């Protein structure tokens, strides 16, 4: 990010200078002061960060859109058919769908809680986009690299079920309410094994930032080998967390229309649908960084390319599981979460602690 950041800093500096010069030309005292303020370091920093964030957001969104395309094509092959055919290899299907949902009307149900209805989808999408910022592409292409990035990411992720529940309740519809309740139950049941797997990684690496975790794996070993039980648990829990088949109870089309998002239309629904894939992308990226060594790899291609390639491979397994399995019942999900995954995660944590105590690495 260093080079991009410096380029953008220069650009922002030039832009602010230009604006200040124009404001100076007016010979008005207040405007000249405003121009001076615009040239000050904090403002330039802020604008530069904003520009970086926008560029990063668009990049990640484009790659996350590739996930939808990948899912369509692979599911097609799994079902012995071709996937979508719109545009070059069917890639423009996403854009066609996007244009369609943008042109739709925004409808708020009459008896719904209007403020909460609007806020819930907003918080859901905002938390998804905030997560993008937490996921680095490589050690020099990222938005933030705080010391507690893992904790921050998981904390933001845990905000999802809350907005789902609120959105389901605010829509004032039986389907959305059931979907919201299911989502809350399922996501909490699967979040704890997920977190325990992350904790085992943190215990072993002794670092809470993604860059540190990946650097540790580059030095020692990809964590999927010592922590294979944890990787499996994390994978299953990740499928449940991203509400994908076989754990897509919150939006079981056959039973609940569209689950908690039944009442949402227009671009809100489009972004919600896309954000399912964005979250799947985030979970794939987490898996890549925690267990597959992130962007570590032979240096004949960029580190970012390694990272993306691994993420896409992990998502292939997501698609494979979707094509192979059928939706399971609520009690089965809860049973799986509490009785199977949680013990596995604890065993995995014990292994991590044992490895740490024995100082194997």
């Amino acid at each position: 990010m260093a080079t991009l950041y410096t380029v953008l800093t220069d650009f922002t500096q030039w832009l602010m200078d230009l604006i200040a010069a124009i404001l100076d030309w007016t010979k008005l005292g207040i405007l000249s002061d405003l121009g001076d303020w615009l040239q000050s370091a904090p403002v330039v920093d802020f604008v530069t960060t904003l520009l970086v964030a926008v560029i990063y957001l668009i990049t990640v969104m484009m790659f996350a859109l590739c996930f939808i395309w990948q899912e369509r094509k692979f599911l097609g092959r799994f079902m012995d058919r071709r996937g979508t055919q719109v545009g070059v290899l069917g890639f423009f299907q996403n854009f066609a769908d996007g244009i369609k949902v943008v042109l739709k009307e925004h409808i708020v149900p009459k008896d719904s809680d209007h403020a909460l209805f609007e806020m819930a989808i907003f918080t859901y999408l905002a938390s998804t986009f905030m997560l993008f910022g937490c996921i680095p592409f490589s050690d020099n292409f990222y938005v933030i690299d705080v010391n507690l990035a893992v904790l921050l990411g998981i904390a933001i992720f845990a905000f999802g079920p809350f907005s789902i529940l609120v959105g389901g309740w605010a829509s004032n519809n039986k389907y959305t309410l059931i979907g919201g309740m299911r989502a809350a139950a399922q996501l909490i049941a699967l979040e704890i094994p997920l977190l325990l797997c992350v904790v085992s990684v943190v215990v072993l690496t002794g670092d809470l930032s993604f860059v540190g975790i990946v650097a540790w794996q580059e030095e020692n070993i990809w964590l999927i080998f010592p922590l294979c039980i944890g990787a499996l648990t994390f994978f299953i829990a990740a499928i449940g967390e991203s509400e994908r088949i076989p754990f897509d109870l919150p939006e079981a089309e056959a039973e609940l229309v569209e689950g908690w998002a039944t009442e949402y239309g227009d671009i809100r629904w489009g972004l919600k649908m896309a954000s399912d894939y964005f979250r799947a992308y985030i979970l794939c990226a987490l898996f890549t960084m925690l267990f597959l060594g992130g962007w570590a790899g032979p240096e004949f291609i960029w580190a970012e390319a390694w990272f993306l390639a691994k993420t896409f491979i992990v998502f292939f397994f997501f698609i494979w599981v979707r094509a192979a399995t059928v939706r399971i019942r609520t009690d089965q999900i809860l049973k799986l979460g509490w009785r199977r995954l949680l013990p596995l995660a604890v065993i995995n944590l014990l292994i991590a602690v044992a490895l740490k105590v024995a100082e194997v690495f």
Partner: protein
Amino acid sequence: MRIEERTYTKADHLRPTGYVLKSLIVTFKGLVRATKNRPCTVLYPWERLVYPDNYRGRPGIVLERCIGCARCARDCPNRCIEMVEVELPAGGKAKRPQVNVGRCMMCGNCAETCPVNAMIVTPEFELCSYSRADLIFDPVKLQYPHKPGYEVNYEFALLSEMKKGGEVRTYAKNDPNVHDNVVLDAPKCISCSRCAKTCPAGAIEMAETGELNPKTKKPIKRPKFDTTKCVVCEQCIEVCPKSALSIKEVL
């Protein structure tokens, strides 16, 4: 009566081998197969399946053969065939079938029932048009170059043979054992010879019976049916003023 409570058996558990692993293997095989070979779907406008030789698309007509018996119009289950007048190339006018393809269900019944194989089935099935009027095919538009295999033959088992096993056989269309016959109720006949004039196949001949009319002392003529020529179009029955003719069904 004690209602048995459904309890979890061992198979109901989410066992990794049964529920997940097996289905994963099966789907992966499908993926490899569909990637190595081509998927079983057909990209329709660009790719087409080879249709069989006896494909039943829209009906077509060979106008030179048509005798205008209107059996197709009578037998059409959707009532989409109508007899309209067209000018013949030899001069004069005659009734020929016009098909409303928009209503046609392409059963091929008209081709099967046609006694002279003038109605045929064609391999044409892409019949979209921008207006319903375009879907009404008049006899000229309905024409289609004939190829062997387009006609539909009589292939069935006779009802009378059903008890013996009912073997399906191909019959000639003019086989008098297969098609119904027209019978005359002689005392009703007034010898008007309208049936002979209407018959499109020329199967009716007014023959002298050898009797003389006691009043006019002229020989009495009665229609005589040539069963090999008769196409059972029932036009003579419709035209008979005294209802002297009727169909005798063959079984």
